[in-house]
Every structure is written in C-alpha cells, then in structure tokens.
C-alpha cells in the first residue's frame, strides 16, 4: 500500500496543464482515496494525548510552579511518541548552558590574568585562525539546523596562523600554561616563519637536548651513556633505510646535508608517508610529491593541505587504484583506503590536528579536561569526512548512539567550514605538532604522546609537550622543512643513548628483576635505547607471538587438544605429548632467541590502566585494546592467540602487553 501521499507523487495522472490549486486538490483527493481503499486512517490518540498531558502535569508540577508556560515541561515520554522535538531540544539546551557556565567559571578561576590578556590580544590580532578538527566540529554558524546537540565543552583558543605577521609564538597561551619551569629557562628560539630566517639548527638541537636532560632529571632516571657512532649509523640504515656517514652522527647540520641525497630522500619519503598513513602505501604520486617537498625544504604543510582538498583528479594506472579508491573525494582518503570511517577519522585528526580520537567513537573520555574532544566532536569530524570517503553519503544524516542509549544526529561542518579547514592547514601549528609527532614515532619507534588511558607506558614517563615544542616552533619557522626537523631528531640525545646493561645479551641472563625493571623504565622514558627491533609488519609480529605461544601442536587436532596439555609441554606431530627425551632444545632455544630479539614482552612491564579491568568480560577488554590501536576489533588470529594465552594461565596484563606489541601502530 502506498502510504506516502506526497503532492509531488510521480503517479500523478492529472492533466499537465493543471494549476497548483488542482495539484493540491489532486493530492488531497489521492490522500482520501487511499483511506477509502483501506489505507492508513487517523488513529484515535485521545487516550495517549491525555495521558501524556496528565503525566507532564503530574511530573513537572513543582518544576513549573511560577511558570505560566507549560511548554517547558519535558518529563514523560510515552512509547509511541518518537520524534521528541521540543523536549530533547530543551534538555540538550539546558545541559549545554549548564556546562558552558561551569566551563566559564572554571576557566575564570584557573586562568591567570596574564594568560587571559595574552589570549585576548592574540584573538584580536589573529583574525585568520586555523581551527583544526574543532572547526569541523563546530557548526554554530549553520543557521539552517537548530537541531539538538551535545553540550559543547569549552574550547581552547584558536591556533594562531604561523604565516600571520602579527602573530607571535611567545604570546601563545599554550606556551604560558604548558611550559615547565625548566623550559622557561631555555633560550627563546621561537621564530615566526615570516619574521626572518629560523634559528640555527644547532641551537634548536641543543635546546631539545637540554629539555630531554630536564625531563630525565625530573623523572629521576639516569640516561645511559652515549653509544658509538657506528652503532647509530647501522641503526639508521636498518630502520630507516638511510645512509649517514658515521662522522655526521650527532651533528644535526651534517645529518641535514646527508639525508638530502636523493636515495635518502626517497627512503624517507616512503617511510614518512607510511607513518602518516599508519600503513604501507603504494601511492607513487604521493611519495614523489613528498620527496619533492623534502628536496625543496619548504611547504610540507601546503602539500598535506592539498591532500585534504576534494579533487576530481583521476588516479593514474600506476597508482593501482581500485574503483573504491577512486570514489573517495580527497587524495588523503584515497591513500588511506581500504579504511573504514573510524580509521579515517582517527588518522585525519591525529595528523592535521594532533588530536587523539581513538575512544570518542563510543564515549567521551572521562575526566579528561576541556581540551579533549568529545564524542560529539568525533562524530562531527566523521560526518564531515563520511561524504569524502564515500560520495554516496553526501547529504545523508549520520547518527550515533551515546552511552546512555540516546541517538544523536552528528553535526556536519558546513561547506564553507570544510573548505576553510583544508585551507587553514597551511601554517597550522596543530599540523606542525602532528608532523613532529609522526617523525618522532618514526625515528624512535615510540609515540611522542600518550594518555592516561593508554597502554603504552606510564603516563609519568611519557614525553612532555615542552620537550618537543622547540621542534614544532622550528618546523613552523622553517616553513615546514621536514628534513630539518628530522635531522634534529636523528641527532638528539635520545638517538645517541646506548642499550642498558640489563638488556645486553649477557645482562639478560644475569639481571635480576629490579635491574630489568630499571632498564625497562629507562627505555620507556627514552633515556636508554632498546636493543630490540619490533618487526614492521603486523603479520610478522603475529607470527613471532605465535612462535612463542604455540607449541608444535598438530594441524587438525584443534586448540582444545593443545590447551589440555600441561603448561610448557609440547606435542609431537602425531598429537601425543612428547617426553623430555624427545624434546629438541636447540630448536627451542633458536625460537626463543628470535622472539627475544624482537622485543616481544616476556614479562609484564606496563601499567595496565584501571578502566580495562572494569570492563565486563575478556572479549570486551580485548576489543578495547584494539580500540587503542585505532581498530574497531581484533582479527580472528589475534583474538585466538589471546584466548589461547588466557587458557594457558598467562596473566591478563602480560596478554594485553603482548597484544599491544602486536597491534600498536607504527605511527
């Protein structure tokens, strides 16, 4: 039965020359004809309406005392009523107003007068600002959709545009609020890129090193001695594929010259693109463009901004682009594919706005402060990216569920906001932070920032923002000279650290728990170099884990047969438990050596955050570890491995650490 009597019904068989009155009459007749033929008829809703009215009067009588207008009542929701137009709007609006008030009060209390003044001056000076994903999020300018929204949190001040001559990094409120006492003592090297040449590279390098020393001193960790140049040269060749003369090691300027060579630039371009994307890419055009930008020494921001802009360019055959890849609207998303909306959202926010959105798909991050994006922010970004990922989603609403079961409509950015976002990436400080963070991870194989909710390391040992701030300032001042930034990282105090004694081949055998624990802490704090080399491929890491976890159980006998064996036993190929005399210790030793050389966790050393233990079951905890790696869930092999370890009696903390070692992204 056709139940949708639209006046624009294509079935309209009226004369073509009939007027609009006739059209309306025809629509009315069609509607009544539907009823006459047994279609939908007006239901008797008297009881429902009166019941709702009575419920509201009863439930909100006290609330409405003194208010003549009963329309503000929003208490009862009968099951049939689904649209909830005014009530939801009022509730959300009230919540937003309350949160806004609290945010303002807290801001006024804790911000110093000086910081407030600096912000005000900056806001007045920097008319063109670079909002990051926050602008994608904020939709207040869209007057066409007075829809209910989650209450927005207080936002940080817009980031100043580096190219704006009036801007001055010294006035950055973030600098005032985030700087440690040590950092305030450091020589000021913040330069605007239009205000002259950037500071000497050696000065920046020295400043970074000083901050590392301050960081380690604050943690009470003694950095290991410097290692020899040949060892560093070898590591650079192995891990990054670049050739740097041994005598250039430790000298940022000399490294800058060395990595400028075409072969090194090509290798860096490949690695850097893979780090941006979090996976290997075969996009030759992008690699070539990136290599050219590295060669020119400027404009990485402009290149990345161009990746974010929708284009009609058809990828060439050499890109090996499939149909699905060509359907994406921006080069960036084409490079990321295959990827789901969550992956695209998280990675885009991480690079362009240096924001961590791994958890916000499902919920807000509790007790995270005002600067952490909310779930509504996540979905606003996702709503802006969805049509770029899949053009058929253009103009369609995007809904998401909040933890309390409500369904919300994501607020997509307006077209103007989307355009402004990619445009404003040029010179963006947030983009500079994202690039520095990516470079840091690429060089040191460890994330530059972690959250208290992360599995990486104890948050106290994570790299403080002020340590890397000189690099961000220098990247902006040098007009996004990525090779310059990279050369500083390659020559910093972290890169020159040696392996702790407890992790040397001899030390592993003789070190006690305390020595081992100290060594792990030093590695986590970047005060020592890890001797272990994590394989780059997730598949290879999984194989390593399986090598350690799985005895030689025969194909076809299943996991149950394996799990029935005593812990540590192995099975022969016919499925029977092997006797001690049948064991092959040499093979076992080789296997353990291979596993140990990769840094596969042999004992629990991470602090597993408390929130994980509050999750209801093991599978849920596994899924949340996957979320921390930017994935929606584990694949079958990873999940199987974790269950196998649990069944064999492994500690959950160690299981999570091992799982994290496997799935943690490279960037």
């Amino acid at each position, binding site marked *: 039965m056709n139940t949708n009597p639209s006046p624009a019904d294509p079935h309209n068989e009226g004369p073509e020359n009939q007027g*609009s009155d006739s059209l309306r009459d025809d629509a009315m007749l069609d509607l*009544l004809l539907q009823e006459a033929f047994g279609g939908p008829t007006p239901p008797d809703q008297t009881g429902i309406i009166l019941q709702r009215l009575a419920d509201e009067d009863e439930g909100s009588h006290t609330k409405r005392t003194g208010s003549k207008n*009963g329309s503000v009542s929003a208490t009862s929701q009968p099951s049939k009523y689904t649209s909830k137009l005014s009530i939801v709007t009022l509730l959300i609006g009230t919540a937003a107003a309350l949160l806004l008030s609290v945010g303002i009060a807290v801001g006024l209390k804790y911000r110093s007068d000086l910081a407030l003044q600096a912000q005000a001056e900056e806001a007045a000076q920097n008319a063109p600002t670079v909002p990051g994903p926050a602008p994608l999020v904020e939709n207040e300018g869209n007057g066409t959709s007075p829809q209910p929204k989650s209450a927005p949190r207080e936002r940080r001040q817009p980031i100043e545009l580096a190219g704006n001559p009036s801007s001055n990094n010294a006035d950055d409120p973030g600098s005032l609020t985030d700087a440690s006492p040590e950092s305030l003592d450091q020589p000021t090297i913040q330069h605007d890129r239009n205000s002259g040449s950037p500071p000497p590279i050696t000065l920046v390098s020295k400043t970074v090193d000083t901050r590392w020393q301050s960081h380690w001193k604050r943690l009470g960790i003694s950095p290991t001695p410097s290692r020899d140049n040949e060892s560093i040269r070898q590591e650079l060749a192995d891990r990054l594929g670049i050739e740097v003369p041994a005598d250039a090691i430790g000298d940022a300027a000399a490294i800058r010259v060395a990595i400028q060579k075409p072969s090194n630039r090509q290798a860096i371009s490949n690695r850097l693109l893979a780090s941006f994307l979090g996976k290997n890419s075969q996009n030759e055009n992008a690699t070539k463009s990136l290599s050219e930008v590295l060669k020119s020494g400027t404009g990485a921001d402009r290149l990345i901004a161009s990746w974010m802009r929708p284009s009609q360019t058809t990828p060439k055959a050499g890109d090996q682009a499939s149909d699905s890849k060509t359907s994406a609207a921006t080069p960036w998303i084409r490079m990321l594919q295959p990827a789901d909306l969550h992956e695209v959202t998280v990675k885009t926010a991480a690079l362009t706005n240096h924001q961590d959105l791994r958890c916000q798909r499902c919920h807000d991050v509790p007790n995270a402060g005002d600067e952490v994006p909310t779930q509504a922010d996540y979905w606003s970004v996702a709503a802006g990216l969805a049509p770029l990922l899949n053009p058929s989603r253009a103009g369609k609403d995007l809904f998401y569920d909040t933890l309390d079961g409500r369904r919300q409509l994501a607020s997509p950015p307006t077209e103007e906001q989307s355009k402004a976002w990619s445009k404003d990436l040029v010179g963006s400080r947030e983009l500079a932070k994202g690039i520095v963070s990516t470079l840091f991870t690429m060089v040191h194989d460890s994330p530059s920032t972690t959250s208290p909710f992360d599995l990486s390391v104890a948050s106290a040992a994570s790299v403080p923002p002020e340590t890397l701030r000189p690099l961000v300032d220098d990247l902006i001042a040098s007009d996004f000279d990525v090779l310059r930034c990279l050369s500083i990282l390659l020559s910093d105090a972290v890169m020159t650290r040696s392996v702790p004694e407890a992790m040397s081949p001899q030390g592993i055998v003789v070190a006690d728990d305390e020595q081992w624990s100290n060594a792990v802490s030093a590695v986590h704090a970047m005060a020592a170099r890890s001797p272990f080399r994590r394989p780059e491929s997730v598949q290879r890491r999984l194989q390593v884990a399986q090598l350690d976890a799985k005895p030689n159980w025969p194909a076809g006998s299943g996991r149950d047969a394996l799990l029935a064996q005593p812990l540590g036993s192995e099975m022969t190929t016919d499925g029977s438990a092997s006797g001690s005399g049948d064991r092959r210790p040499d093979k076992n030793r080789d296997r353990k050596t291979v596993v140990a050389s990769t840094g596969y966790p042999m004992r629990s050393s991470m602090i597993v955050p408390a929130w994980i233990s509050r999750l209801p079951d093991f599978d849920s905890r596994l899924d949340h570890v996957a979320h921390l790696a930017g994935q929606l869930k584990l694949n079958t092999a990873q999940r199987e491995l974790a269950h196998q370890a649990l069944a064999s009696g492994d500690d959950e903390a160690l299981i999570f650490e091992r799982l994290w070692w496997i799935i943690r992204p490279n960037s």
Partner: protein
Amino acid sequence: MNWWPETQANGCVSELSPAELVVRHQDGIWRYLRLLGCDAATADDLTQETFLRVLRRDNFVQHSDEATSEYLRRTAYNLLVSYHRKFGRIHLSDSPELLDESWQRWAGKDLTGNETVEALRECMESLTERARDALAMRFVHNTPRVKIGENLGISDHGARNLMQRAKAQLRDCVEEKLRAITQPS
C-alpha cells in the same frame, strides 16, 4: 457521521474539554499533516505534539470551532517545519494559506475530512469495475501506470485517462454529496 458536540452543532460557542477537543479535531489534524506529506507514523507523532502544544498553553482560547481548527493546523504546520529542519526529509513547497484553501474545499465541511471519506466510499460504488480496479492498483498496490495499463489490456495513456476520468467522477460525486449534507432539506 457527525463529530460535532451538540453545543457546537447548535451554533453555541462553548469551550471544549481537552478530551472533547482532541476527539473533535484529531482526525482533521492527522489528515492535514498527511496532506503536507507526512507518512502515517510521523502524522501520528506530530498530531500528538500539536495537541500537547496547544493544550499546554494557558492563554489558549477557543473562540470558535473553525478558529480552533485553524490554530491547530497552523501549529501542526510549524511543528512540521521544525521537523523538516531537523531531519531534512519532508519538503514543504506551499504556504499554509494555499494549503488551507485546498483543505477547506475538501475537509472544511466538518473540519476533519471524515464526511469526505465517507462520501468518497459511497461514490466509489458508482464507478465501473474497471475504473475501481485501476484506482485500487494505483492506491493499494502502488502499481506503476504502465503496469496498470498492461493488467487492464490498455496502453499507458489509456490507463492514465481512465484514472483521470474516474477521479473526476469521484470529485464531482463527492462535491455533490457534501453540498447535500450542508444544505438541509
């Protein structure tokens, strides 16, 4: 069928209780929302919301049945506009004034459209079986016009003409019947 309470039918202006008001006008509001393009479920929701909005107002005065009906329709229209802005699914191309003209012609007699539907059912008896079949295919099964023609052994245009004539006949018949209702013998 007459939904007027006795006092209204006798021309007296007295205020209806909330229950009487809902009973009196809910069919009309529901059909009006359907005329605006709502599906049945949306019409249900917005009908409820319309009455709640109006009944919550302390300053709502029932001047006359017609005025109340018009006020309810305008409230329903505004709610639908809000709904449209929120979900972007329903397109309103006509102003409420123009829609009201059409509404008055078809449902203005009893402010609900019930009389018209009743009249329409009676008038359908006067149609040929072939014309009834064509309209049934159209309105019950949502069959494309070409398919209707095929089923009846006539062309696409033939089916269109058949349904046009049937609807014109129904329109005349209904108008005649409504006129008879409002002109007491």
